[in-house]
């Protein structure tokens, strides 16, 4: 191959190559996207508070104090005030965090494991099956999460388990769908053919090569799914279809504040902001991770 041929095999844009970035660790940390830090901070706070609630809360869970109901924030002993049954708001928020964490973690992990497995299976299936199978997965996406949740809740009764199950059923097709495309791309790469060539079997290839290659994507997906889980758990609890008393939840807390809009309008801010910040945190984290893993997208601002 002559240089002349080499000249022809060039990218259309013919721009001069850009050199590599800074080396020192500090510099690299500074170049990380701010969304990563912000998101990471919010998520850390959330997880910390949720875990802390297992060990300590300002007041014991569900301690009613009817004599002290609807105390405004700043009342001595009650940093954020109390709700209509005299429960300390801070405690309620912490317990709500715990509940959200539980539901989100369980549902996201299960949905991702099952969904990714299905996605890998579809990506690795033979050519004729792939089309219909992918369409099948797509069809699974048609049901909005809330409908699935309501159907399950009507049959199984409201509760945390139902909510978790509903989120799982809803998110499995999502995880599967996201996995199929990239998995197929990796499978088409040459080094995978080479692996087959020296005797590796399909399951091994799937796990060792494909999974490893798409794992950044999955991490981002996980973060986003977490955010979705938080939001829908709150929605279900708000409607009364999710977790039931006496377990605390931000969603249900928010529901209670609706009748208090005149008496204690500030109350709705606490659970509401908790939900927003937590969901936002996971979304930002997902964005930040996406930027880190795929700088090409970052430069063009793709999502």
């Amino acid at each position: 191959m002559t240089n002349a041929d080499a000249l022809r095999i060039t990218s259309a844009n013919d721009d001069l190559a850009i050199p590599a970035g800074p080396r020192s660790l500090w510099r690299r940390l500074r170049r990380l996207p701010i969304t990563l830090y912000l998101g990471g901070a919010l998520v850390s706070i959330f997880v910390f508070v949720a875990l802390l609630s297992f060990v300590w809360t300002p007041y014991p869970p569900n301690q009613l104090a009817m004599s002290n109901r609807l105390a405004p924030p700043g009342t001595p002993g009650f940093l954020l005030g109390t709700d209509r049954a005299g429960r300390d708001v801070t405690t309620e928020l912490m317990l709500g965090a715990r509940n959200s964490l539980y539901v989100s973690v369980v549902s996201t992990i299960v949905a991702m494991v099952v969904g990714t497995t299905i996605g890998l299976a579809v990506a690795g299936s033979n050519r004729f099956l792939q089309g219909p199978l992918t369409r099948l997965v797509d069809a699974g996406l048609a049901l909005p999460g809330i409908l699935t949740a309501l159907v399950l809740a009507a049959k199984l009764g409201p509760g945390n388990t139902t909510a978790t199950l509903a989120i799982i059923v809803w998110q499995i097709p999502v995880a599967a769908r996201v996995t199929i495309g990239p998995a197929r791309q990796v499978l088409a790469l040459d080094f995978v053919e080479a692996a087959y060539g020296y005797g590796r079997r399909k399951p091994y290839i799937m796990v060792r090569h494909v999974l490893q290659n798409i794992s950044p994507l999955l991490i981002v997906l996980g973060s986003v799914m977490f955010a979705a889980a938080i939001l829908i758990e709150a929605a279900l609890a708000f409607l009364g279809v999710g977790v039931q008393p006496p377990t605390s939840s931000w969603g249900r807390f928010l529901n209670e504040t609706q009748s208090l809009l005149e008496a204690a309008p500030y109350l709705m801010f606490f659970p509401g902001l908790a939900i927003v910040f937590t969901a936002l945190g996971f979304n930002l984290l997902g964005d930040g991770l996406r930027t880190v893993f795929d700088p090409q997208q970052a430069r063009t601002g793709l999502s």
Partner: protein
Amino acid sequence: MLEICDLRVHIDGHEIIHIDELDLPPGTRLGLVGESGSGKTMTAKAIAGLLPDEAKVSGTVRFDGQDLLELNDAEFSKIRGKRIGFVFQDPARSLNPMMRIGRQVSEAIRLHTDLKGQAVTDKVVELLELVQLPDPAALVRRYPHQLSGGQQQRVMIAAAIAADPELLIADEPTTALDVTVQDEILRLLISLSEQRNMSVLFVSHDLGVIRFVCDRVAVIYGGHVVETGSVEDVIGRPYHRYTTALLAANPGMPKDDDFTSFIGQRLHTIPGSVPAIGRFPSGCRFRNRCEHASASCAEVPTPVTVGDGHRYSCWHPDGEG
């Protein structure tokens, strides 16, 4: 008509283009040749005002007396299309797939002239005929995907000359096309240039194409013009080592048109590859790939003029001992 003086382009603190002097007289076709990464496309973009925002440009690019680099985007947009036309490399991607051909070809007309309605359509049909496309009246309402690559490029050319520019900048216009079609497109460009007395700045990595199309050529490497002159002079009697290397590396370019001289010979390649930005050596940018480099090459070579408009910048040109 186009005079470039001390043009420098910086990106990320690195100087990627530095052209002391480059001229394009009216009615000439000038080729800008170099490997990919040589900076030829960047130079064309710099002239056109189409560099990315991060690039910092200095110097003068005088077009008919007016310094283009002093114009802002709005002012420049009045010149682009009207006085300078462009043809890009990949016509399939350079045409809007969701817009009818007629609209795209007429864009420059509608922007720069007062023509409206039927007059515009007539002009478009006229242009499509000029670029030798069949059934122009029907073509006006078609979409790009309905045309072949060669036809698409003809459409691009029609669109580029629509407002009758004095200069046409063509960046690798035939690289993405079949070889058989390339010839036709190149001939078209030549004839258009001669009919309309339109100058052409033709950017390419292919010396053969440049030799075919252009009167003059500038060889560019690492953002510097290393040799410039008429096509006969530079290709017939090259001086800069990069030029000779390019010529030798291109088997379609026997120095004396005698192909039998190739039989049994090894193919020449230029050792190494084009460095990334910021990795070029100081002084003569080609010296780390040049067989004839010496210590003195650490100094930027001064240009030497040889013959009529034939200039090169090399301490150890071909023909030396």
